[in-house]
């Protein structure tokens, strides 16, 4: 089952990239995520591992994931090592006007569970779709708010001089 959503954010691609690849900021915008911790010595980049949990229904699912694509500033993808089999991807592309088109994809499969797995995948889909949608909304708010603050700080700086 694959769930995805996209949005155009009023921020440069580098800024969005710095946020989606920072493990310490994930909890501030990713909906449904209850844990995103660095596992191992590498904090970010290709091969970095994170212990993540994602609330779906009555359980928090997740496990250990590893970054398998780190193509700055365009593609950031991870895949599960333990726990629920899934892949996640942030796909960033420059848009006109210094903006960024952001696509968030989650693909998951409930392997080996037969009919109940097939049903569980579909029952979980609306919840996952909701999380993807809210994640993009929250990322938009976070990124654009930071842009506004940065611009306001820049405007205030010359006025403060004597």
């Amino acid at each position: 089952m694959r769930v995805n959503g996209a949005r155009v954010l009023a921020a440069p691609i580098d800024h969005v990239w710095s946020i989606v690849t920072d493990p310490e900021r994930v909890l501030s915008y990713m909906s449904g995520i209850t844990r995103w911790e660095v596992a191992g010595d590498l904090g970010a980049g290709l091969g970095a591992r994170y212990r993540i949990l994602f609330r779906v229904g009555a359980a928090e699912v997740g496990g250990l994931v590893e970054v398998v694509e780190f193509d700055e500033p365009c593609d950031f993808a991870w895949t599960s090592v333990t726990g629920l089999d899934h892949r996640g991807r942030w796909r960033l592309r420059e848009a006109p006007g210094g903006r960024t088109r952001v696509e968030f994809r989650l693909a998951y499969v409930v392997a080996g569970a037969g009919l109940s797995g097939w049903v569980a995948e579909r029952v979980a889909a609306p919840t996952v779709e909701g999380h993807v949608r809210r994640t993009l909304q929250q990322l938009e708010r976070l990124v654009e708010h930071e842009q506004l603050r940065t611009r306001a700080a820049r405007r205030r700086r010359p006025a403060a001089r004597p």
Partner: protein
Amino acid sequence: MADAPTTTSPRRNGHRPETRIEPPAAEPSGSLLTRTWRELAAALQRRIPRADLDERDPDYIREQLPLFWLFSSLWFRGEVRGLGNVPDEGPVLLVGNHSGGNMIPDTMVFTVAFSTYFGVERPFYQLAHNLVLSLPGLSWLRKFGTVAASPENASKALSSGAALLVYPGGDYEAHRPSWQSSRVDFGGRKGFLRLALEQDVPIVPVVAIGGQETALFLSRGERLARLLALDRVLRLKVLPVSISLPWIVNLGDFGHIPLPAKITIETLPAIDLRAEFGPDPDVDEVYDHLIRLMQDALDALAAERRFPVIG
């Protein structure tokens, strides 16, 4: 699911691979009813599988989780909070209040949440009443890590580094009347505390509400159980009477269709007994403290509920 009983009798255990399981000693005399009961008990004792922690099968659990997740999410609208309070690794004794009769809905909801949170790779065992493991068609429970309740099995699980879930109140608590849903009642059983001290493992209280609303439990039927010698023969303190589907009046609770009551579970912060109560803790004091702690949490969960079943 049940408490770690304090008895050390091998025949009560029935889970020691090196010991042949003997039926309860037969007395030369007795009524036909008593002899029949003894025969039945002996047959059930013979059915209790020997303990083997290796029977827990992570792949099997992983394959079954979606089914139980569906039940847990859709039927019971399960909500498990505070799993971050469970130490990330090492042995731990999870102590829960038991509800929902023999259908153990709270155990199912918690097991799903624990297995997805920590991964099926983390060894996790649950103690169950011998009778549960001897019933036909329930052998799959052993693959989930369910072992017969005995001090030996509990020690074995904890010394292997696993997380162990016990319900000290066992059948006594799980069959309390529905109007006592928000009461923690271990019936004075303290064996689990001695176990935690012996093994020097932290205790994590697990407080659940909603299970007792999956049927209308009327009475434990303790007097009836004593009259029929169920305590001596089957280690059953109760012969519960409830109103449940599809039986309407259900005597003994040999299965029922649970009502879709919302089940909420809260995991409280871990307690290091020696750090909090000194090097040689008084078991009675720890017991009273734990009951108070769990009762407070259960009262808070009960206060959140607006309607029975609906939650």
